């Protein structure tokens, strides 16, 4: 009876509404992204040529950290107010609402990051050839990062200081994504074929979208035992 309203679409809509109500909080990863990108010239050098060399990697690392920060709270509020428990006893497959939540999360973190990246690219002297590949790779990559991060968030949701542990768990799993993400941008800048690495990113995204919800569902059932 409740089932129809609480599937993939239901949770997607609800999480978007919740994010909208917490707009300030939700904007922080984006602001973080912009702020730390400013640290780089301050910490290294304002020299355009040097920045251009490092730009793809830096932007990717910053996007990764910003996504990591935001993943911490993916399941936290649901765990605290009992919504997670209700989710566990709902009749449909747990994987679907979970995907809805993650999509909402990406729409609210990964997508803004992707859209702001040309601005950051400009600030860090990213060559023009790299701008489109940067956006494409970030779009696909941050979706991957949201999915993988959600696995870590599910495993650590019941822990008090889960944030740091989440980073420890999830960063090794992030490494392939950043390798291919920044390689796509760098290849484009060097005039090589950048669709190859992008295709690999797409493949990773498909695999993650298929497998992560299962791991997340298992982890959520597990940690609600506390």
């Amino acid at each position, binding site marked *: *009876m409740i089932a129809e309203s609480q599937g993939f679409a239901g949770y997607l809509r609800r999480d978007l509404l919740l994010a909208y109500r917490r707009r300030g909080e939700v904007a922080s990863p984006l602001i973080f992204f912009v702020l730390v990108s400013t640290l780089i010239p301050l910490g290294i050098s304002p020299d355009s040529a040097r920045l251009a060399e490092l730009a793809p990697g830096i932007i990717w690392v910053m996007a990764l950290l910003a996504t990591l920060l935001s993943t911490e709270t993916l399941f936290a509020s649901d765990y605290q107010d009992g919504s997670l428990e209700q989710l566990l006893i709902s009749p449909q497959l747990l994987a679907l609402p979970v995907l809805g939540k993650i999509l909402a999360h990406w729409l609210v973190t990964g997508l803004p990051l992707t859209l702001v990246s040309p601005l950051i690219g400009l600030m860090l002297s990213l060559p023009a050839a790299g701008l489109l590949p940067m956006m494409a790779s970030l779009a696909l990559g941050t979706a991957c990062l949201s999915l993988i991060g959600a696995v870590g968030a599910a495993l650590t949701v019941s822990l008090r200081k889960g944030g740091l542990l989440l980073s420890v768990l999830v960063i090794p799993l992030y490494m392939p994504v950043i390798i291919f993400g920044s390689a796509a941008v760098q290849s484009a800048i060097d005039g090589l074929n950048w669709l190859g690495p992008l295709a690999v990113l797409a493949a990773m995204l498909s695999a993650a979208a298929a497998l992560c919800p299962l791991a997340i569902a298992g982890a959520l059932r597990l940690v609600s035992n506390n």
Partner: protein
Amino acid sequence: MQLEGANGAGKTTLMRLMTSALQPTSGKVLYLGRPVQDCRYEYLDNILYIGHQSGVKMILSAEENLRWMSPASTSAAEIALALDAVGLRGYTDVPCYSLSAGQHRRVALARLSTSKAAIWYLDEPFTSIDKQGVLNLQHQLEAHLQRGGAVILSTHQNLPIDGLRTYVVDPHSDIGLPL
């Protein structure tokens, strides 16, 4: 059916096992004679569980929360009526973080009016609600039983309801519950 037992005896755990929020390490839960795994959708679609935590989202209003927790076919009028019945008239549009704990409880209990589930699992439903609320809830429970529904609740209160069976939950003995 009323579950009784000392604090920590395992009433909440038992209820969570029955609603499949928790998986048993051994043994099975049967619904109408079949293991819950086999008729999962049927069973879970037909139950309502209100646990210790209210399941109420603080930044949504009472009306939004109730709409989320009710079947899709519930009309706005029914929702308004349900909130009215628990004494929240006038508070329906306010975000729940500005309501008291007792009022959160009432939002959760408003589900009982809009739900079409046949089996209700209520874990300590009388916490934080006042005398009028207790009476209201009792009436609702009786009405539900009259309609042929089932209620399993754990509470320390005495409930003058016809046909109420009591089971004592004791971690040191085996419990056999024919449901």
